[in-house]
């Protein structure tokens, strides 16, 4: 046991009514060390960090801070000790300005102008320029992360926790973030870096603790490992790969979007301008980009949740822009949304009743009355065919894990025998095994002649399954490129390059032309 450790966790356990989030977790971080916590979704990483930050109380175990035992009862106490946290889903208030957001966490007299000056000074010193008086809702995701980091830096942290910080960044912005983190480490700040992205950890971190199912399954020096060996520790077996055979059928356009422009209904949303695209039978078109760049608006317009002008969206040669989601589904357009609970499925209802949500058109109702036995048979078939692990067709949607619910929703939509499938974030928050299954399912479906449109933030995923890739940034869609003709770097540039340059001089400042 090291005497010099900044933070030591000993035998931390935390259980919730339905899950053991942390089971006998121990780890140690030295000053100036960048320490990775590596694990899949649901491995218990976030809970562990919240325990360190005092937002969640552990059931058992000890915590040592600079060698002294501490019990951190609240985030305020954690901050006082010198622990800062950058949250995965940012803990910022959209309607407040940058400086107001920062003022709320600082334990000092309320003086906004003085604080604004300090925010400007610190943010520039660390290469994270910010305008203190901008409203947070007008900031890009990358800028919001800067606010979180600057907020921590103003408190002179000794330990900085970052929870999946790169999931929302372009590849270029990731490099920029890493520079800042290395600089902080060189000044003696310890960093806990939570991620499931293997090559990032390999390039950034000095050491790693690997978690699976709430337990520590190993420690490693990432530099000495390969992504494959790290993955084995993380998921307990080889990383599965997808197979993408060539499509041999007739290539004809299924979905055509013609100069779609749409003002966002959300006051903080992004409007679409002149979006055009084509998806052919037998192919997967991937749309890359960071959420908030018009993804939600495009999906709602394509799915029919928002109707648009009749002649802007065409399905197999028929104008369908004016049809609602139900009418479009009857014509063979199915959709798997990003939000599974509450949109793709009704959380408090059984899988049988959730099958009814879209599959009612499969002869499940007569004279306005529902045949629940048919709905149940459909749900059972979906569960069996798509390997949905659950308590049967009567299980509530919300009782399923993210991956299993996603399999159910994808399966339900596939069983509607679609011509076109639109999928948003197909594997978001899903464990590696289910993610591979879902990707292969989409590939197999496309090779039967179905056209598929995938919108995802995960570049790796898009490069794995797409035939062509386009980028949506600031409500504009780039021309789709065949996968072989592009790469992550250039897609990353498009993700930030097109992005709102005039409003964000700082963003373009470091993006090579």
């Amino acid at each position, binding site marked *: 046991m090291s005497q010099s450790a900044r933070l030591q966790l000993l035998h931390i356990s935390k259980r*919730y*009514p*339905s899950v053991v989030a942390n089971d006998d977790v121990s780890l140690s971080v030295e000053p100036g060390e960048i320490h990775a916590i590596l694990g899949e979704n649901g491995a218990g990483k976030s809970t562990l960090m919240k325990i360190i930050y005092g937002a969640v*109380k*552990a*059931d058992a175990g000890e915590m040592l801070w600079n060698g002294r035992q501490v019990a951190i009862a609240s985030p305020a106490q954690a901050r006082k000790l010198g622990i800062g946290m950058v949250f995965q889903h940012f803990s910022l208030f959209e309607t407040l300005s940058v400086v107001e957001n920062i003022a709320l966490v600082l334990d000092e007299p309320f003086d906004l102008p003085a604080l604004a000056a300090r925010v400007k000074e610190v943010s520039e010193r660390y290469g994270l320029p910010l305008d203190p008086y901008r409203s947070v809702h007008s900031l890009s995701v990358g800028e919001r992360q800067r606010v979180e980091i600057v907020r921590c830096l103003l408190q002179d942290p000794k330990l900085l926790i970052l929870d999946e910080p790169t999931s929302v960044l372009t590849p270029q912005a990731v490099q920029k973030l890493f520079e800042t983190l290395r600089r902080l480490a060189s000044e003696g700040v310890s960093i806990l870096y939570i991620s499931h992205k293997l090559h990032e950890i390999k390039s950034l971190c000095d050491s790693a603790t690997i978690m699976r199912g709430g337990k520590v399954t190993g420690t490693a020096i990432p530099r000495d490992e390969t992504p494959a060996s790290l993955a084995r520790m993380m998921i307990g077996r080889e990383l599965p790969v997808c197979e993408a055979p060539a499509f041999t059928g007739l290539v004809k356009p299924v979905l055509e979007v013609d100069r779609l422009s749409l003002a966002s209904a959300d006051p903080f949303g992004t409007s679409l301008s002149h979006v055009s695209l084509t998806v052919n039978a037998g192919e997967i078109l991937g749309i890359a980009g960071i959420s908030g760049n018009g993804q939600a608006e495009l999906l709602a317009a394509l*799915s*029919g*949740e928002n109707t648009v002008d009749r002649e802007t969206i065409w399905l197999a040669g028929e104008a369908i822009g004016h049809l*609602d*989601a*139900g*009418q*479009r*589904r009857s014509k063979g357009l199915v*959709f798997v*949304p990003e*939000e599974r609970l*509450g*949109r*793709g*499925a*009704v*959380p*408090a*209802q059984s899988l049988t*009743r959730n099958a*009814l*949500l*879209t599959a*009612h058109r499969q002869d499940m*109702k007569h004279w*306005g*009355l*529902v045949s629940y036995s048919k709905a149940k048979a459909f749900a059972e078939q979906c569960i069996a065919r798509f390997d949905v692990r659950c308590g049967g067709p009567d299980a*509530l949607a919300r*009782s399923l894990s993210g991956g299993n619910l996603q399999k159910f929703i994808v399966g339900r939509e596939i069983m509607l025998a679609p011509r076109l499938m639109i999928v948003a974030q197909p594997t978001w928050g899903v464990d590696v095994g289910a993610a591979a299954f879902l990707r292969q399912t989409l590939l197999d479906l496309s090779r039967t002649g179905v056209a598929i449109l995938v919108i995802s933030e995960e570049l790796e995923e898009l490069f794995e399954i797409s035939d062509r890739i386009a980028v949506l940034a600031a409500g504009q869609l780039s021309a789709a490129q065949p996968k072989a003709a592009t790469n992550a770097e250039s897609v990353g540039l498009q993700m930030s390059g097109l992005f709102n340059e005039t409003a964000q001089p700082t963003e373009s400042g470091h993006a090579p032309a």
Partner: protein
Amino acid sequence: MHLLEPRAQPSQLMRWTAPLIAIGATLLTGSLLFWALDKSPLASFYVFFIEPLTSSYGWSELLIKACPLILIAQGLAIGFKARIYNIGAEGQLIVGALFGGGVAIWLEGSDSGWVIPAMVVAGAIGGALWGAIPALLKTRFNAEETLTTLMLTYVAIHLLSYMVNGPWRDPEGMNFPQSIMFSDNALFGLLIEGSRVNTSIFITIFAVLAFWLFNARSFLAYTLEVGGQAPAASRYAGFSAKRTVWFSLVISGLTAGLAGVGEVAGPVGQLNLNISPGYGFAAIIVAYLGRLHALGIVLAGCLMALIYLGGEAAQVSLQMPSAITGIFQGMLLFFLLGADAFIDNRLRRPA
């Protein structure tokens, strides 16, 4: 201060025992109240909840009060499932009574057998119309139905007041704000000799069966429920949100309007300012207490009717203001909501 944490699975046991727990807690708090007022809780409860049921007349009065409550609550339950909060059933009841009563006054002296059916249809239309206004305001202008339905209740009260003070005032009524007493063929026929129970009970019975079938099997009920629980899922499936609003408010207005006719063509027998002792509001509690289920509402409606009867009895035997009914109603709803919290949550356990 956070007392709860989510359960892994909602408790079916709590779902059905919550109303019993709420009733128990209400009785317990009620006995504290009686005790504080220097009345024996047991004797008071006897007066309140047992004595009304010791005579066949008491049972018939229970039926008379339960019918409108059940009828209105059936309609409200449809809306509540869709999270359309119509809290203005009282106003819809009044307008239904005005329409139905208007027909009775208009056809005064007619000996046609169609007067009552015409009143029923008119009352249903009146209630539905009063429900349709907030539906229009919500679908067209996005105005909250909670506030508009309630405001329209006040408007309805003043409208009723105008009619019975003005155009429809009984010329021989000593200037009281009331209409003429309706003639026999503008009243529902009595069913049981010596009681006030009348044929309007068949409307309620029919409504219970119809709503039970509707809730259990219809696709429309399913779409309403999805719309209430997960609006985004409803849009995703392509179910019309506007249809949900219209249907919920018009149906609940309609049943309230029918209840209004049942009162003026039944126990009240005319239009006056005391058509309803707050049935429209009490029915909200009945709907929740009955778990928004057609048959559960029947039981809950009977209990609420008993609270009304008890309030009247307490006024006579215990010299207590009948306002105690409102206190019991409020407590019952509070405790029910509190007990319902334990369906999806459980008490937080200390670490």
